[in-house]
């Protein structure tokens, strides 16, 4: 198993005697000339500015560097036929504000267990005391939007499921969602912004749908690995920190139940090779961790856990939002997106989406022209849904 030692923000890594197989070294920083992690958070009001420090800041910082470290070492690629490179052992040296808290064994164990399950890797942490300038995250504030008084946090990826969850919450259940999105690349950010704007335009009489955009990603070079199994940990960590600061109890991370379980489609998909981003066990482990970080604080829930994607589409139809479907994107091959063909058509998300829109009779709003490759519809039974 590859052993990787990661030092974050200049944390001191003790010298060890030379060993036959020295670990891979990675240095990660979001400040100064050697910065290689972008840790940018855009918040539509100053209310949160002062709050992202202490344990909240620690959790977000840990999740951000874990996300960056995850992408910095290859898992062996597609040609690794035995999966020998898939699992890695990370030892992360990182400064934190609340050193006494993070060094408690149950806390660091809960952190390692949660990350271990979601990524399939082994994670160990060596915490050190953060100096004052490391304590608060840099925030880029956009005061042009009205923050309002939200009652829940909804993770907003720009895909079908997160849109359905937001619409169900706001339109059908009368909630006031604070949207949080993670934008690892510019084209995704603009897409999420456009979709949020379309939701606002459609339902402006109900709620303002404020959006917090988190621009956390690596910078400088292409990632060594694209699997990003720790992304949902980052997503959930940031959203929980925000919910805790605003005093909200519910964080909704939506995935339909089939995708959430992500049952392996064949025998080669073992462990986290089939991602566990919203797997019930991940949410359970994450909530156990968050309960330690923020006692009595927020809980992350999947509002769509008992529904198929086709059933989640019903929410979009029932709220009269079929046109919003065209603004959503589910494709995992983001690098190959074009304006006209936003979906590759061959990744599991695209196939899942295509089947679901066909099953729900919504093909009109998800036309085959939007896919670089369309699945062979001739093998599917005829569907007579109107999509209304």
């Amino acid at each position, binding site marked *: 198993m590859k052993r990787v030692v990661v030092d974050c923000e200049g944390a001191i890594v003790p010298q060890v005697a030379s060993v036959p197989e020295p670990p891979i070294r990675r240095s990660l920083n979001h400040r100064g000339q050697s910065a290689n992690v972008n840790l940018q958070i855009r918040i539509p009001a100053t209310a949160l500015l002062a709050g992202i420090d202490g344990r909240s800041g620690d959790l977000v910082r840990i999740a951000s560097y874990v996300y960056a470290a995850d992408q910095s070492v290859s898992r062996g690629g597609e040609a*690794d*036929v035995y*999966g020998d490179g898939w699992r890695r052992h990370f030892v992360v040296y990182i400064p934190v504000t609340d050193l006494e808290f993070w060094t408690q064994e149950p806390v660091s164990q809960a952190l390692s267990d949660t990350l271990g399950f979601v990524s399939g890797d*082994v994670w160990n942490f060596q915490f050190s005391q953060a100096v004052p300038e490391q304590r608060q995250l840099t925030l880029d504030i956009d005061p042009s939007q009205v923050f309002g008084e939200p009652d829940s946090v909804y993770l907003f990826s720009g895909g079908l499921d997160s849109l359905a969850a937001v619409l169900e919450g706001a339109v059908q259940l009368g909630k006031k969602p604070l949207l949080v999105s993670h934008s690892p690349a510019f084209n995704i950010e603009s897409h999420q912004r456009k979709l949020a704007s379309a939701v606002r335009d459609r339902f402006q009489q109900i709620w303002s749908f404020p959006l917090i955009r988190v621009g956390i990603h690596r910078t400088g070079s292409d990632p060594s690995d694209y699997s990003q199994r720790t992304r949902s940990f980052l997503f959930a960590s940031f959203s929980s920190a925000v919910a805790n600061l605003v005093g909200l109890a519910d964080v909704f991370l939506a995935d339909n139940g089939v*995708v959430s379980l*992500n049952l392996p489609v*064949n025998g080669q998909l073992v462990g986290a*090779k089939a991602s566990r981003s919203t797997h019930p066990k991940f949410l359970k482990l994450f909530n156990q961790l968050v309960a330690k970080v923020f006692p009595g604080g927020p809980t992350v829930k999947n509002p769509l856990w008992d529904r198929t994607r086709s059933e989640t589409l019903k929410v979009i139809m029932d709220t009269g939002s079929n046109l919003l479907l065209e603004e959503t994107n589910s494709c995992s091959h983001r690098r190959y997106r074009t304006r006209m063909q936003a979906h590759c058509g061959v990744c*599991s*998300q695209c196939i899942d989406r295509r089947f679901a829109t066909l099953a729900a009779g919504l093909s009109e709003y998800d036309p085959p022209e939007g896919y670089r490759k369309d699945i062979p519809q001739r093998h599917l039974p005829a569907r007579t849904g109107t999509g209304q």
Partner: protein
Amino acid sequence: MGHLRMGRLPKTRRWTQVVDLLDAGSLDTGELAAAVLEAADYRLRQLANDQGLGYSFWLLTCIALAARGNTFVEDLSRLGITTDPGLSSLQFIAQVTDRAREQISVSPSEGDFAELGSLALRTALTETVGQQGLSLFGSSVEDLQTAFRGYSTQVQFGRLAHRFFGDFFARVLRSFVDRELSNHVGSPSPLANLNESRNFLDGLDLHARQSSRVMEEFAGGWYSRHGWESQGLISRDETQRFVAYSLRKLRSEIKREQDQP
């Protein structure tokens, strides 16, 4: 979000032979199994030292031995497995599998094989103890022990081991073949459609399980001898050596079957 990391077979001569077999006019599961084992031979030999895989079989052995004694609950507790009243057989099996996975996470095992071993452990238990008529909604510890005791004799443990190794080998074969098979479905390939593809994979599973039948007597004998000698405490080292030898035996059995006219 639902991402998948799909792999592909290397373009080496031996793996190309595997791919060529999938294109051949008549698909022979035995021939394909032998070709896969030949292509993966070097890596499969290294499984002798795979601590994660060895741990799964050791757990199976320990539970069977514990069921014979009067300290079932305590013995399981030492393995990190709790037996709360009202635990269903499926919950218990899930707990055992979780224990195996926890061990994988702290062992230096590489590759997918340890994970496949934990899944084989689950299958072996589900197909045996899980079928003993225990309630899905909760059983007493005594019921659980009785169910396991049924598999703690020499003959019955041999059957348990057969299922473990059979399922493990089936999963190993599938983990390679699944990377390529979808490219060989539909005209002009020998597998005309998905149904035929599924039937072929079922045949491959059956072949692996049948070839593993050799393990029944062999594992039963080992279990009986070592269980008696060690007074019910078979060590992990002993088990690791047994697993290493068993895998070697299985590989040669599959190759021998193929070499026979």
